[in-house]
């Protein structure tokens, strides 16, 4: 196992940041930690990268205990914190050289690993890191985290604040890294990114809600979901909320995702109800659950 976590808990005075977390990540896996802000994702990352000591439980990364063998872990993992944390006043090249040196290696030695990513920022290698765009900064940070050829890569919300195109590129890069036998643990608040992981753990309030492949997690959704749309979105949501047998009502893009509490629910019944509320162009059709729906259902 690349990462083994058993019954990890962490408290900050009275606040429970993590409660009895256990899961395992297989070598070469791209594992996603999905959850809203404040769920405890960063705390878990900090424990696994030896920056925090857990109050309870044991965890190991590539076979090393996070408390006892922290020195060995630091040699074999790459960590990219959520906040850009390279030297803003050093250039792209200097940052890379610096991190290569403190890991006791050189840029040339592991160049093939970062080549794909580095060529994209190479035209700016003499620019100071602070002057790079958000996407470029992420690429540089990834290069610096990879420069010593880590066995496990920890990425804490790598795509937060990055434009959609760069986000897509970034995930393609992760997929390529995975093929080079690097285990990746990535956290994100974006549900659409979750579908790109091999397995995901849904986490909220320091507790794991569910761990499975993205496809399986969606299948766990217990009820049929309906896409409902009408001419007046605001009125539609209000009406659905007032509908007495509703189970959940979530706006989802141009539709509202609706589930009913009864198992013998008939959509035409809902349609007549909405018509009686003077809504026009009513459309109700069955749809498949997304990870977001699952998360909302589990978090209820």
């Amino acid at each position, binding site marked *: 196992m690349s990462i083994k976590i058993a019954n990890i808990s962490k408290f900050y005075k009275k606040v429970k940041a993590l409660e009895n977390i256990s899961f395992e990540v297989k070598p070469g896996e791209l594992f996603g930690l999905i959850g809203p802000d404040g769920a405890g994702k960063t705390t878990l990352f900090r424990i696994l990268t*030896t920056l925090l000591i857990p109050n309870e439980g044991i965890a190991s990364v590539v076979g090393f205990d996070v408390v006892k063998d922290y020195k060995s872990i630091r040699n074999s*993992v790459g*960590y990219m914190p959520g906040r*850009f944390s*390279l030297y803003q*006043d050093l250039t792209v090249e200097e940052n890379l*050289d610096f*991190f290569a040196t*403190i890991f006791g290696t050189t840029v040339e030695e592991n160049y093939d690993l970062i080549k794909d990513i580095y060529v994209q920022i190479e035209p700016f290698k003499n620019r100071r890191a602070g002057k790079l765009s958000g996407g470029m900064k992420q690429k540089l940070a990834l290069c610096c985290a990879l420069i010593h050829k880590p066995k496990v890569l920890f990425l804490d919300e790598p795509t937060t604040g990055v434009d959609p195109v760069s986000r897509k590129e970034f995930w393609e890069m992760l997929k390529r890294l995975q093929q080079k036998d690097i285990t990746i643990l990535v956290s994100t608040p974006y549900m659409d990114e979750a579908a790109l992981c091999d397995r995901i753990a849904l986490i909220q309030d320091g507790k794991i809600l569910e761990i499975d492949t993205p496809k399986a997690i969606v299948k766990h959704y217990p009820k049929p979901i309906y896409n409902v749309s009408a001419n007046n979105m605001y009125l539609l949501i209000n009406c659905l909320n007032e509908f007495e047998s509703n189970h959940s009502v979530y706006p989802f893009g141009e539709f509202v995702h609706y589930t009913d509490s009864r198992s013998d629910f008939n959509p035409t019944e809902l349609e007549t109800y909405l018509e009686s509320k003077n809504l026009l162009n009513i459309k109700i059709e069955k749809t498949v659950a997304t990870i977001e729906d699952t998360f909302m259902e589990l978090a209820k």
Partner: protein
Amino acid sequence: MNTILFIIQKEFKQIFRNKGMLPIIFVMPLIQLIILSNAATFDVKNIKFGYVNHDHTSTSRALIEKFNASTYFNVLTNFPSEKLASQAMLNGEVDVVLEIPSYFERDFQKEKRSALGVTINAIDGAAAGIENVYVTQIIQSFNKDLKVNVSQYGQKQNQPIQITTIPSFWYNKTLNYKTFMVPGILVLLVTMITLFLSGMNIVREKEIGTLEQINVTPIKKSQFIIGKLFPFLVLGLAILSVGLLIAKLVFNVPMVGSLLLMYFYTSIYILVVLGIGLFISNYTDTQQQAMFIAWFFMVIFILMSGLFTPIESMPKWAQTITDFNPIKYFVEVLRMVMLKGSGFVDILPQLLKTLVFAIIMNGLAVWSYKKTN
């Protein structure tokens, strides 16, 4: 070793790229040295002097003339009454008021004695003391002249034997206060720059988040700290060099002692300051906090260093505290070596104490620096 060199290189790059800091590091200390050394004087000059003359005789006028001739006093006003003089002192228009009573000349010639009233504004106690000495000196010398005049009519044998003292001021012959102040202010500058920069350096990495990235690397504590602090040692010595150059060229301060010894002592001293800076760094989360704590120590260290007020005149408990003030030793050593030409053996007590401080402070700093929290 390679790692340390690389960190040092990185630190220097960052220092020289910080366009806002560079002038603060090099230009400000020099301006301070030039301005403070010229301004911070213990001489009391241009004393605003007023008098009330009730006597109106040649003797009383001669006495006032004596004050007028002195370079220390600016004879400003002749007040018609004591009341007006008091009012003027209340308004801050005069610092010293001399009151010459009626029949001053007559009493002096008849009874061989007479009284003078001197009022001194003592809001600044130190200045008042010095003003008192000046006034007394002038009156005494006037007294002597007068006695000679009075006793000219015969009885020369009755004249008292005068004892005169001729002081010779060693190590600073002309009592030039700049010679005394420049080394002191140089100490202040070296301390300030190295303490503030080192105190804020690691906190800055905490603030911008780079420390977190560094902490997950296999870099050793000692490598990181040495790499961080070495550039400031160099910077401190550079400031000392520029300061000494200005002391020599602008103020013509004598440099009797060995420069090498001065640099050697300063290096050890800077280690103490860097240790304090690092220690502050470890216990603060923002540069602002670090700055305020550094200021707190700076102010206490400076005021209790003997730089502006002599330690001998402090209360006993305060004198004990000054024994733990590294700035005190640095001021002593720099003055001793520069002005007296003291050698290695002479400064050994200070050197040993500073060395002990350096070991303690850096030990504490390294111990309190944690990569995990």
